[in-house]
């Protein structure tokens, strides 16, 4: 990995109003990697994703993506730089049909999937393409939230807890989906509480505590780190 990282975050601080949520986050994600942010609730994982995306504007530090400085960009330019975002609450629009939800995010680069390819990957979305978006089940909504990013041609996905609250069989399907995306060369930064799920697809891990990244390690070191992880995550 001698290339420059696709995403590089240096000394990222972020605030929600007056409360200081991130205290200097450093992380890197290379082209084609799947990296997982681990940590307990409230340590700043979601805030990290939202700050990278530009949804949190009160932030300092450096964020560069694909050679572009994300700090100076207005919010709607982040996606155009090639970042796709799948929020924790999924963000499916109730006043839009499944179809409309799917084609809502504008295409930002070539190389995205066509709607037909996406429907091949998600046949149950195709069946319900004219339903109201929020009438889908939780798992289907999660699928839709990921699916709509695949059309846009983004280089990298920021995924916030895609398995939260879903049945094991759905979690498995999402795992397969992410593996497929990885094979196709998608770069993924994943926030995940489900440690076992994450360990199956991630190449590397970052461990967060108190608004900072306190450790980073590849999947191979996982067995040696179990003690530390148990302590930090309380799993």
């Amino acid at each position: 990995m001698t290339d420059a990282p696709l995403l590089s975050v240096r000394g990222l601080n972020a605030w929600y109003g007056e409360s200081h949520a991130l205290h200097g986050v450093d992380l890197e994600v290379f082209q084609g990697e799947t990296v997982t942010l681990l940590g307990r609730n409230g340590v700043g994982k979601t805030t990290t994703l939202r700050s990278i995306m530009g949804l949190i504007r009160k932030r300092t530090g450096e964020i560069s993506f694909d050679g572009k400085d994300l700090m100076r960009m207005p919010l709607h330019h982040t996606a155009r730089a090639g970042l796709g975002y799948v929020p924790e609450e999924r963000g499916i629009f109730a006043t839009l049909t499944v179809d409309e939800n799917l084609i809502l995010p504008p295409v930002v680069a070539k190389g995205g999937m066509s709607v037909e390819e996406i429907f091949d990957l998600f046949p149950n979305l195709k069946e319900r393409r004219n339903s109201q978006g929020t009438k889908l089940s939780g798992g289907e909504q999660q699928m839709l939230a990921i699916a709509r990013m695949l059309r846009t041609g983004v280089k990298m996905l920021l995924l916030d807890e895609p398995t939260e609250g879903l049945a094991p069989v759905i979690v498995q399907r999402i795992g397969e989906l992410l593996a497929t995306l990885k094979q196709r060369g998608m770069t993924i930064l994943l926030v995940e509480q489900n440690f076992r799920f994450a360990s199956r697809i991630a190449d590397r891990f970052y461990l967060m505590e108190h608004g900072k990244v306190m450790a980073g390690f590849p999947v191979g070191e996982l067995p040696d780190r179990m003690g530390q992880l148990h302590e930090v995550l309380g799993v």
Partner: protein
Amino acid sequence: MTMIFGIPLQAFLGQLLVGLINGSFYAMLSLGLAIIFGLLRVINFAHGAQYMLGAFVGYLLLVHFGVGYWPALLIVPIVVGITGIIIERLALSKLYDIDPLYGLLFTFGLALVIEGIFRYYFGVSGNPYSVPELLAGGTNLGFMFLPNYRGWVVVASLAVCLGTWFAIEKTKLGAYLRAATENPRLVQAFGVNVPLLLTLTYGLGSALAGLAGILAAPVYQVSPLMGSNLIIVVFAVVVVGGMGSIMGAIVTGYMLGLAEGLTKVFYPEASNIVIFVIMAIVLLVRPAGLFGKDA
């Protein structure tokens, strides 16, 4: 003579037509208010002033430039829409992060300024705007005499309302608008230029008010005060309908116009206040409004 409920049929239908005409304007204006409010969370108090502005731009085009009704129908919404865009960029866009009441107060001040300027130059008396030649005269429908222009107003406003509804509910741009109404930050994070969408939406809402104004010019007198009393009635319409639904705003507008027309037939003294009375009743029975989703 045919009578209905002890009232000559002609008079009855005549008032009903007046109600339908008024309802057409209520519908167009409350539609614009609902679109603007949905996305910007601003109650556009200047909507009445923009309606008046539309009528005046049409009037001035005719008097000073000899531009007739049909071109004005296109030029007026563009002019009023552009003024709306300028206002949004310079001022309203600075108010999105604070209490929505400030947007109401700002546009209230704006309405006073616009109306004040026109009162200063044109006084308070009305200026007549004649019906375009093509639509002069009337048609005998057998049961009543229909002035052609009034028929045109009903058809045109219906087309405008349904066209707007279609554009919002069935098109890609409309999907952006609906999604941004629900969660503007996320839509922007997807790469949609939401600030631009907000600007265009206010421009569109303003243009709708301007279009209503030029449509109204031959029906009512073109006067600086034509918008200020109307906007309060339209607010009542909006409270009755609730601002959650585009179709709700349209339907409520026509319904209340007709209710007003009927009141003129049976109890003319109350025709000024019937919409407010209906508003009060709706507040008792269904506080969120007939089509409202929020409490």
